[in-house]
């Protein structure tokens, strides 16, 4: 999870666009940029753990809090990976678990465990642009958007950023018409994504507010999603970030939903 959670979307896979940065030979090509960004945002180290507090502030300034521990294990960089999200707050959803097996070539597998109902439920992930437990983050922000779903175009290179505009290949599946990503030239972390709605109006901003190095890995520790139309926003703050803690694949299985692995606890 690393920077992670936060991260928005960016993920771009390569499959994409030939348009890109043709004609600028001195620069990396757009596919390379989005790939690197994807890796920097979602695949740092082999695994990771972080404690996350998300604070949702609605248009009237009312706050709601979600606190959880997130574990991530990469099977292969840029490819399959696993997420395990263990909720601590609000207290009435404590022990709730959300697990994702992210795939690049097919729909993700997602599970939720609801302890009070003693229920493990699989959630269809064909549409990942649903809210992450009521926050302004979408599931896709947390686990990453498949690079192949958009075509990418390098629209500008500034002193600090590569500015990439991504347009979905299937407009029906999503609520935006395109988004523009500022990718840090140094570390390739996506720093800001601005989404345009179907009328071409900005309506959603995802931004990294703070980046810190852990084990030499630049990591977004504070990020924010703002929904301009609703006037609400969610701030995500990460602490206790650790990389390469030796997570085992077996804990990312249904069996561990009811009995969380020790790794989530401290």
């Amino acid at each position, binding site marked *: 999870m690393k920077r992670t959670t936060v991260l928005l979307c960016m993920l771009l896979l390569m499959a994409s666009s030939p348009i890109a940065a043709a004609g600028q030979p001195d620069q990396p090509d757009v596919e390379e940029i989005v790939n690197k960004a994807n890796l920097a945002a979602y695949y740092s180290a082999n695994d990771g753990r972080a404690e996350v507090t998300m604070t949702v502030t*609605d*248009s*009237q300034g*009312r706050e*709601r809090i979600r606190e959880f521990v997130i574990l991530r294990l990469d099977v292969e960089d840029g490819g399959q990976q696993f997420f395990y999200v263990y909720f601590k*707050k*609000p*207290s*009435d*959803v*404590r022990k*709730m678990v959300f697990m994702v097996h992210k795939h690049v070539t097919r729909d993700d597998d997602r599970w*939720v465990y*609801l*302890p*009070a*109902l003693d*229920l*493990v*439920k*699989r*959630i*269809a992930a*064909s*549409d990942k*642009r*649903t*809210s*992450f*437990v*009521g926050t302004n983050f979408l*599931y896709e922000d947390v686990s990453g958007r498949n690079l192949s779903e958009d075509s990418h175009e390098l629209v500008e290179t500034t002193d600090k950023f590569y500015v990439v505009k991504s347009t979905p290949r299937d407009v*029906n*599946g999503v*609520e935006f018409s395109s988004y523009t990503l500022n990718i840090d030239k140094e570390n390739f972390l996506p720093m800001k994504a601005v989404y345009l709605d179907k*009328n071409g109006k900005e309506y959603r901003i995802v931004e990294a507010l703070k980046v810190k190095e852990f084990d030499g890995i630049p990591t977004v520790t504070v990020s924010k999603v703002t929904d301009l*139309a*609703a006037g*609400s926003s969610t701030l995500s703050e990460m602490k206790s970030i650790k990389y390469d803690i030796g997570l085992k694949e077996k804990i990312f299985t249904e069996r561990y939903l009811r009995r969380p692995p*020790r790794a989530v*606890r*401290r």
Partner: protein
Amino acid sequence: MQLASSVTQFSLNRPKVVTALMVIFTLVLGAFMVRVHVDTDPENMLSEDEFVRVFHNKTKKDFTLHDVVVLGIVNEKDQDGVFNPESLKKVDALSRFAATLADPDDPERKVVSRDIVAPGNVDNIIQDGPGRVRFEWLMKEVPQTREEARKVRDYALSNPLLKGSMVSENGRALALYLPITSKDFAHAVGEQLKEKIEELGAGDDQFYITGLPIAEDTFGKEMFVQMAITAPLAMLMIFLLMLFFFRNIQLIVAPMIIALCTVIATMGVLIGTGNTLHIMSSMIPIFIMPIAVVDSVHILSEFFDEYQRNKDRKATMEHVLGHLFKPMLFTSLTSAAGFASLAFTPIPPVQAFGIFVALGILLAWLLTILFIPAYVMMMKESSLENFGGGVDQNNKDNKGSLLNRHLRWIGSMASGKPWLVIGFNLAVMAVGVVGIFMIQVNDNPVKWFKSSHEIRVADRVLNSHFGGTYESYLILSGTDKELSSVQAADWLTRTLDKQLMESSTIRAKVINAIREIAPTLQSGTELADTLKKLWEAELDQVAMEDELGYDLWSDALDGLERMANLKEVFKRPDVLRYISDLQEHLVAQGDVGKSNTVSDVVKKVHMELFEGDKGHYSIPDSVEGVAQTLISFESSHKPDDLYHLVTPDYTRANIWLQLRSGDNVDMERVIADIDQYLTKNPPPVELNHNWAGLTYINVVWQEKMVNGMLKSFISSFAVVFLMMSFLFRSPVWGLLAMIPLTFTIGFIYGVIGLIGKDYDMPVAVLSSLALGLAVDFAIHFLQRTRMTMAKTGDWAAAIQDMFDEPARAILRNIIVISIGFTPLLLAPLVPYQTVGVFLAAIMFYSGLATLWMLPALLTVMQGWVFKKELREFAENSGKTV
């Protein structure tokens, strides 16, 4: 009267100065009209700091609720109703189009696109294979096949939040709910939708647009059209009628000028003083016009009858004004008092209405006594010649004689069989009183349109298909009581004792800590804070391998937080079940077609989490179960939808009611029913309840209006009586002056009760007009009777005189005004029709009561009411003899 004659003299001697002054005065005041600010919002019937409005606005904010335009789509021809690819394509196009609507001049006035309820914009939770649920847009894209279209329908029908509101119960019609940020944007939304529908081509689909905001906003727009059409039409009608009676255009132009100047000046002052042009104030011209014309007609009618006798306009005018000045002043004062009393109602627009009609009446009086003499003086002598003899001749030969014959018949009947007349009127009054007790107070802004109006049609069609297009919100709120330290200890002990079973060591540590610390502290919060520090330290010390220890200390800490969350009453299963029961009760009563609550959300999601099993359409048994169900719902495309039904802190919940009728009586029944239910079935925790929503606000202002009107009417009745007694220097004559008014009110409101016409805003306001007009006739009649009696000394002779020219003036007024306002009947807006019909009825009956009852009563009472007049007569005749 000294004042009278000096004013008259001035006017007779300086006609051009008077006229110029009047024109300048009117133009100056009229110029303020350019500052007009229109306000068609019935909410403004209540002042802004009225509790219900404050609460309504707070509710809208707390639950992010908006006023809604309802677009209904019905297809009677297709086998699947609107659930066919073609209709759904239009539905989709319309909802996408609606999402873009905004006022180009003020982008804040817009459709709130994210909260639109439409198949493409609502989320659905469905089964997606064994053990798997799926959140998806109900209609992600327009279906290509009939089968897909039917699937959309089936999913919608299986969602209790949509069934009866977005999709009709029979699965054949759809309703889109388009929230708008500002009610006064509703009409524009409606118009643009209509254009879009036109462009798409309706085909077999029928489209209906309704909802209170659109009714209210459209009413406002049409109101001005009506003002621009009917008010001038009424004026034209009055003009033609006067032309018919007086046969002299030049002469009758005068009252028209006065009415026009009065209306312009009054509206100018109204607007110039910063008042908005509201539904009520838009009626001011219609009320001022008859009253302004009435005075002029009194003068002209007499002038017309007398001029031929002495052929000297100056002398005639002096004579006419000599005996009309006083009654005219008093009629104007009493009418003005009647309207001014509306200033004591608690409803700002009604206050403004009363005050400015009163002002207009006084202004009309002033202009009448100033301008009419001046005008007569400015006329060419030749046209007066013509006017005097010729017309009178004409009159006698033709209709005039018919009029006269009838008048004489009424007069002889009243004096010949007085008891019959009195008895008949008492009988009418008795029936009237019965009718008054049958009056039903009711209003509904949608019914301000004729029943053939498209909004009324839409209202009927959509309310027959759906749960209702009238929304109101019942807000329940927990009463947040802080626990004392001892109470908190008790709760924690009970809760944790059970939860920490697995380790007696930890359990003992926890329980002991509570027992020891609690008595030393005051509040539960303090206790929780202290325990939290203690137990967090314990948790930190738990060894890495000790999973049980970690779990249990976490549980203990969790218990502290759950205690803090006890105020989140709307996560409690018992409270949610209570709400469900209340909903069931409401729907069973019939007025509420549909209700949406957080309980519905919990039940629906709970069911889908358990494989769509109907047995799980229920509230989970624990707060945690509810919370986890709700957080599952929040993992959808539109988690915010939850917060239309409950506040994020779960301390307040919205029972969102849809009513099929916006009639206040129906809403009142729901309110009474809920009060009763809450008393009979006390909720599991103490809950406060309060209402919001336009349908409810209408009930509140109606209540205030009816009570306020009643009070203001009673007070003005008393004031008018005192003024009459003062004018006639006799309480008996004062009482007599009240007779026509009392019988008119009895008759009019009796009829309203008997025919079942709802007592609504215009009907309420008409009582003031009835008072003003009826008193006007009575004063003229009585004042003239006393003068005639003093002159003739004999009642039989006096009554003959009375039923000549004075009665004719009254009758002319009755005819001019009652027929003059018939154009109002053509208005497509019911309040205007009401005013037209009742204006005529009031004129007719108050005139009748004056000309019929007063002479009958005077005949009966002649022995003792005329003492003063007879004395005067004796003195005069003594002198003459």
